[in-house]
């Protein structure tokens, strides 16, 4: 039972989200086209249109507890097809930003850890370093030998380098990371 109070939209998080999107969440009229085409909907706690519906009803925290935004692949099918031009993918990303900042994994710890690891390697090397990413990811996620079977083949094919590449402007990248962490209006690495 949801008791609708007078100003459901007074929720600060939702107001911030609407400001960021550039349109009110009521722009969505719940046709379900986003969910109809979403390739990840099958594994979401609630499909994208439901996520928006809960936000429309002011249930921000409830949405953060669900895994939907973590398993969104940002493929933009939803945004591209939305007949009301709702920024669906953007909504999912804003939820991720907030959840990430708050450290909420909502049942998708592996996804959470992956993003964290990925950005760490980028922060360290300026560019992606796959072996480092895989190892660190496995270390942090506790799946030590995951995907290791593929590694020798890839090494043989010259697809993986043993050492991180050089050439990135590391100073610039570190500055970006530092600033993004300290100054970003939301989000943290």
């Amino acid at each position, binding site marked *: 039972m949801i008791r609708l109070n007078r100003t459901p939209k007074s929720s600060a998080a939702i107001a911030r989200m609407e400001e960021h999107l550039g349109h009110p969440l009521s722009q969505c009229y719940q046709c379900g086209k986003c969910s109809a085409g979403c*390739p*990840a909907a*099958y*594994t979401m706690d609630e499909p994208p249109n439901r996520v928006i519906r809960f936000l429309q009803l002011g249930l921000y925290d409830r949405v953060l507890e669900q895994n939907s935004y973590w*398993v969104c*692949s*940002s*493929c*933009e*099918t939803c*945004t*591209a097809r939305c007949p009301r031009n709702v920024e669906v993918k953007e909504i999912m*990303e*804003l939820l*991720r*930003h907030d959840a*990430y*900042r708050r450290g909420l994994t909502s049942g*998708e710890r592996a*996804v959470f*850890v*992956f*993003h*964290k690891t990925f*950005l760490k390697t*980028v922060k360290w090397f*300026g*560019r*992606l370093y*796959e072996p480092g*990413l895989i190892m660190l*990811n496995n270390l942090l*996620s506790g799946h030590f030998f*995951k*995907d290791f079977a*593929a590694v020798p*083949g*890839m090494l043989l*094919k*010259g*697809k*993986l*380098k043993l050492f991180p*590449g050089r*050439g*990135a*402007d590391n100073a*610039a*990248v570190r*500055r*970006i990371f530092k*600033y*993004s962490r300290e*100054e*970003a*209006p*939301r*989000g*943290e*690495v």
Partner: protein
Amino acid sequence: MKFSYYPGCTLHSTAVEYDLSARAVCKTLGIELVDIPGWACCGATSAHSVNELLAYALPAHTITSATESAIAAPCAACYNRLRYTDVNLREDAHLRAEVEKALGRPYRAGVAVRHLLDIIANDVPADEIQAKLAGTLGGVKVVCYYGCLLTRPRDVAAFDDMEEPRAMDRLMELCGAEVLDWPRRVVCCGAAFSLSRTDVVYHMTGKILASALKAGADAVVVACPMCQSNLDLRQPAILKKLDLEGRIPAVYFTQLLGLCMGHSRNELGFGKIMVDTSPLIQKINSGRAETAAPAEG
């Protein structure tokens, strides 16, 4: 034609064959690629997933580092992030100011961000490409897979139709392939979850592979290293899970173009594809021989 070249991280590692073939094809077509000094990772997909400023600042660094007036990006994810960044930084002065603080220098607006497919398919006239072809694909059957980020959203990636893109199809037809129609040219492969929720990748990529096999294709032609990696590296396991027979190599459009332009398979990195490409090459060769035979006779 001269472009700043932004290979992105993967073309220096898992997609080295895309880098090799892109450079080879561009050279043949007279497209000069200039490396961007000090380029960094675009952040996809993690940066935009979890930190908005990072998501814009990383691509902004690379765009600002470019020396030419346009950037050629072969990776669909890089392309999408760079386009997003450029569109949003030009529209949102506040965001741009924030990003510039992170960069420590002014953002270089006005650099055109182009995908390599867009450049080859739309800037180079078809007859010029034709003129460079030394052989054909011999009527081999292909499906063209564009993936999700190459054509979406409409106002960011705008070089081809969002739902039914055809740029790659046209190039492959030009090369003498039989381009098959199929329904999954723009669906997502799930690349974002390649290391975290591999089950999602299996699900999404599985649908694509099954569809390509059902269409009767000899190869899936791609323009994104993430897609290729999912379609190729995980293919044996996915097909086993789906209980499907056969193998279908995922090859870059630049590799097939390069092959027709007379570059060697080695030059184009065919050997770096995990799925065996030799049946495909054999089909191309026998197809070429068949079409050549009447002329000899």
